[in-house]
Structures are given as structure tokens and as C-alpha cells.
């Protein structure tokens, strides 16, 4: 990975963690409400996957703040959405779990576990139909890989040879249930093996994730059909802010945090490109300033007008059928 890209990924990872820590703080302070799912620990995966799949469409889950920002969405608009303000990316109507930005080919933000997978299949069909080669990436958790939507999608994507990259972000837990208690194996890629090429990557290694996603997209662009990638990750926080995470031992969390993706990226930058601690601290200060600015923007942003309650239920101008 070249220096510029490595620095870009590192900045976005630090920005992501700083953003999530600020979100946590503002949740505790009551500025953010509802469900808030933090990506702390998984930023390496989130950022590298977005940067690697720069061209093409992305569908993902409700744990998507870091991905949305890495994809190019303004941190101000993301934070304001968490605050429920009119300046939010979804004008305060979606909240933390529903960030959408078709101008960045980012389709949410789905809070139904596995529900976005069939949508990504449809999108991949459309892209193939339209002659676009870049394909679609759908990200979901290990928990979603036990549902019907997942299995139906493997079947259809494979039968139709769709340009679709399935990415299972396996953090080992479906909310509070250890995956091996509800699935017969720890690695979920096994479920996809009869249908398509599968690969595994260390999700705590951003460089490896970047390379694995690039490689997978190149296969898809070459007309290979669907590919399945499983990234093993570790979530440091509870499933959401309402989960104290008592089901994981201190030992387990210790092992988990020893693989920290940000620290790993720092040593990569130091070893490969000779970056100094001072330079890394500069990146951290830049990230902190961006998040402080986003939080200040969100705090000062206006509430949505009450009239917005009724907006966008349907389209404004209905198409006249007579032609």
C-alpha cells in the first residue's frame, strides 16, 4: 500500500474512533438518543473496506457511522443526524442506524438484521443489467448469516452470477450471543462455500482488509460472479449503548484489544514509511478538530420543522402514466 493511501486510511480510522468516542459522550449527556451502535475496535475493517471498494455500491448495517464518513459523507451531517437535527444527512428522520447517501453510492444503514442483503442482490442485478462492472458490496454481521435472507441471497447471486461481494464482518457475537452457540461453526464463510469463492481476512489488519477487498472487487470486475469475504473483527463496546457487555470476560477483551487495528496501522506507517510519533499525533489532532467541529455543528443545528413530519412519505410529483 502506498504512503498516501496508508495515511488516508489511518486518518479515517483515527477520525472514526474519535467520532465514536464523542458520540458515546454525547449519548451519555443526552444529546443523542435511541439506539447507538459503536464501531470502536472495528474501524480498521470499516475504513479499509470503504476505501478499497471506492467504485461501486455499498449496502451495510446499522453500525455504519465510520463507514459513512470513510465513504465521504460529511462528519457534520453524520453527527447532526445522530443528534436528530435538520442538518443531519437524513434530516433527523433516520438517526444513527439510517445514514443514506446515494451520491456516494451508500445505501444505508439497515436496522433489520440481514434485510439489506436481498437489496444488494437486486442492486447487483441492476448494475449488471446496466452494463456497469464495478459491482456491489454488502456488509453484514455474523448474526445475519443465520437468517433466511442471507441464504436466499447466496443462492440467487450464485445462480445469476451477480457482481456482488458478500462481506461478513464476524465479531463473534450476535448482540450478546456467542456465534458458536447458535451456529455450527465459528467461521461463517463455510456457509457460502457451495455457492462461490470464499476468503478470510484478519479484520483487525486494515492493510490486509484493503488488499482482500481490492482483490475481490477485481475478480468481480473480471466477470467472476459473486465472492464471499469474511473479516474476523473485535467489537470493544457492547452491541449498543444499552448493552453493558457482561457476557465477555476480561481475558477475552484483553486478547481482543491487543490486536488493535489503529495501533497496528501506526506501526505499519512507522516501519514502512518512517512516520514519527509527532507526525501521528498531528493526524490525531486533525481528527479531533474535525470531530469537535462536527459536534459543535450538530449541537447548534436547528430542529426539523414540524411540517417535515409529512415530507417524503411519497414523492412530490407523481408521474403521469399517459404516454
Amino acid at each position, binding site marked *: 500500500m502506498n504512503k498516501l493511501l496508508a495515511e488516508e486510511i489511518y486518518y479515517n480510522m483515527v477520525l472514526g474512533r474519535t467520532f465514536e468516542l464523542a458520540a458515546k459522550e454525547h449519548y451519555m449527556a443526552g444529546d443523542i438518543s435511541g439506539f447507538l451502535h459503536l464501531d470502536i475496535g472495528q474501524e480498521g475493517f470499516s475504513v479499509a473496506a470503504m476505501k478499497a471498494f471506492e467504485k461501486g*455500491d455499498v*449496502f451495510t448495517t446499522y453500525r455504519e457511522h465510520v463507514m459513512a464518513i470513510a465513504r465521504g459523507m460529511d462528519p457534520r451531517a453524520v453527527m447532526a443526524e445522530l443528534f436528530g437535527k435538520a442538518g443531519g*444527512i*437524513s*434530516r433527523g*428522520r*433516520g438517526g444513527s442506524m*439510517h445514514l*443514506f*447517501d*446515494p451520491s456516494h453510492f451508500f*445505501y*444505508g*444503514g*439497515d436496522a*433489520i438484521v440481514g*434485510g439489506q*442483503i*436481498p*437489496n*444488494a*442482490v*437486486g*442492486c*447487483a*442485478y*441492476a*448494475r449488471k*443489467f*446496466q452494463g456497469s462492472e464495478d459491482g456491489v458490496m454488502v456488509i453484514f454481521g455474523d448474526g445475519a448469516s443465520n437468517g*433466511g*435472507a442471507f441464504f*436466499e*441471497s447466496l*443462492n*440467487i447471486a450464485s*445462480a445469476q452470477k451477480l457482481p456482488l461481494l458478500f462481506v461478513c464482518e464476524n465479531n463473534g457475537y450476535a448482540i450478546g450471543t456467542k456465534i458458536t452457540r447458535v451456529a455450527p461453526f465459528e467461521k461463517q464463510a463455510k456457509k457460502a462455500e457451495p455457492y462461490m469463492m470464499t476468503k478470510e481476512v484478519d479484520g483487525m489488519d486494515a492493510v490486509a482488509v484493503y488488499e482482500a477487498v481490492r482483490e475481490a472487487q477485481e475478480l468481480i470486475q473480471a466477470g467472476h460472479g459473486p465472492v464471499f469475504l469474511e473479516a474476523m473483527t473485535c467489537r470493544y463496546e457492547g452491541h449498543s449503548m444499552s448493552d453493558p457487555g457482561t457476557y465477555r470476560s476480561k481475558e477475552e477483551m484483553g486478547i481482543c484489544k491487543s490486536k488493535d487495528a489503529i495501533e497496528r496501522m501506526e506501526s505499519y506507517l512507522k516501519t514502512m514509511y518512517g512516520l514519527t510519533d509527532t507526525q501521528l499525533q498531528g493526524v490525531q489532532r486533525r481528527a479531533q478538530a474535525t470531530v469537535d467541529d462536527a459536534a459543535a455543528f450538530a449541537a447548534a443545528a436547528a430542529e426539523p420543522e414540524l411540517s417535515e413530519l409529512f*415530507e*417524503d*412519505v*411519497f*414523492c412530490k*410529483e*407523481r*408521474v*403521469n*402514466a*399517459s*404516454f
Partner: protein
Amino acid sequence: MLYREALNRAIDETMAADGTVVVLGEDVGLYGGSYRVTEGLVAKYGEERLIDTPIAELSIVGNAVGMAMAGLRPVAEIMTANFSLLAFDQIINHMAKYRYMSAGKIALPMVVRFPQGVSRQLAAQHSESYEQMLSAVPGLIVLAAGDVNYAYHALKYAIMSDDPVVFIEHELLYNKKGEVDFDADIDPFKARIVKEGSDITIVSYLKMVDDVMEAVPQVEKELGKTCEVVDLCSLNPVDYKTLEASLKKTGRIVVVEEDHKTGGYGAQITSWAAEEMFYSLDAPPIRIAGEDVPIPYNRTLELAAIPTPEKIAKRIAEWGKTNGL
């Protein structure tokens, strides 16, 4: 022209006019559709645009949502309403919600065609109606085609509309004959006055419109009064203006629906009449609906479970007599 031919023509014309229209569902392509609605289209537009799917309803609607997000105009066919229950997550959580949750950034120009109702001895898992659930979901347009001309125009509208539409068809109407006025300018959201009258407004939709029309001569003969028959056509949004005008004229309203009475769609119409039109009413609004039982296989029991022209006529005549007609 038959109802199914009118639907076929609507799909055919929109597919010819707009290359982004695609059809997907079980047996819609090579087989031609289980009710022959898509017959002949695969020869014209190819398998890429007439997509035969596996028997996986969640994916049929879920994939259509993704296609619409990517700029196509998918027309998804559910083989029969009961199977749609497997797709209700996609219909309610995705199809109906994305525009609102994304503050209008995502449009879903898609249609789910939805054959439903009591056909002939198909038993409880192939005979239901779900307009009551669908109409309770903000973000979905729910149209119900009870007439051949309406079916043609409304389906064309639905396919070209940028809103997600559930297009309900009744399984016993596919071979119904009717005239289509191809040049007519039909507003799909406007209720249809099937027959004018001055003393009772009978509101219905889908196949029950035909049953009501069969019952009306008997009612008019017994009561010596005239009935106005309204086909609602659009179940959400509802054309209350047409209903209001009719009710102001007649002062009496009967709603006829095939579905089970408890929690049924018709309750929305009678509750509207009670809330909004109370001082125009000369009689209590009533509903004639199906029994609260799963639909049985046996033909006699099946007919006992739903309104028939005879039952409709009897009930309206009795109600009329006890309410000053």
C-alpha cells in the same frame, strides 16, 4: 379484453416505452405467469427483463427494492397473497420506509403485483386478503383493480410512478371481460362510480364490486329505492371526496368486503363515516364482510365464509327496512 390481458398490455406498453422496466417473480418468464398475466412478454423482451426467480418471496421483493434503488422500475409478482407474508419484512421495513428514512434521497419506483382473495376451493393457505395490513403501512400506495379498464390504466400508472405501489388483483377476475378505453385519462386515485343512485351508497372494491352489482337489482326491488355503487379503486390514499359527495346525497352507507370482518379494511370506511359524516347519516353505517374463520376447502363452507350476492342483498334489504327505507 380480459382483465389479465389488460394487465399484460399495461406491462407490455410500459416495457416497450421504458427500457428500465423489468418483471420478476415465480414463473413470470418462460411459463408466462401462473395467471398468464406475463404471457408472451419473454419472447419480446428477453429473460433479462422477465426474470424467473426461485420460490423465495423475501428475495423477490427485496431484490426489487435494490433494483429500484439502482434506477430500474421493477414489477415484482407475488404468486398469491399468502406467500407474500414471507416478504412482509421487505414490504414494510424496506419498500415503505426508505424514502422517508433517507429524507427523500432514495426513491423506489416499484410495483408489487398482488393476486389475492377467495378463488375456488384453494383452502386456507391460498385464499386470503391483506389489504387491511398493507393499507396500514404509511409509505405504500395500495391500489385494488376491480375493473378491466381500471386495471389497465392503474397498472400503467403504478409502473411509471416513483412511489412504491402494491397493486392488488383478485384471482377470480383474471378472466373477467371488459372494455378498455385506451385513450381515457384515468386518475388511479379516484373512486369509480359504478352505478348512480340516490338512497344508499354501497362501497366496495375488487371482486365484491361485481357481487354488489349482482345484488343491487334485488335490493332496489325490495326497498323501492336506488343504490349508488362505488368502487374504491385506491385503498390508500382513499378518495374521501367521492365518498362524501355520495353520502351527502344518499345519507346511508354500506361497505362490502370479502375479507374477515374483525380488523378488516372496511372498518376504516365506516369509522370515517361515523367520525366525519355523522350529521349526514340517516342510518347506522354497516359492513358486510367475511366470517372470522380460515377459508375452508369445501365449496359450501367456502361460500358460507364470504359475502355472496344473495347474502349482500338480504342484509342490505333487512337493514334498509329497519332504518326507514
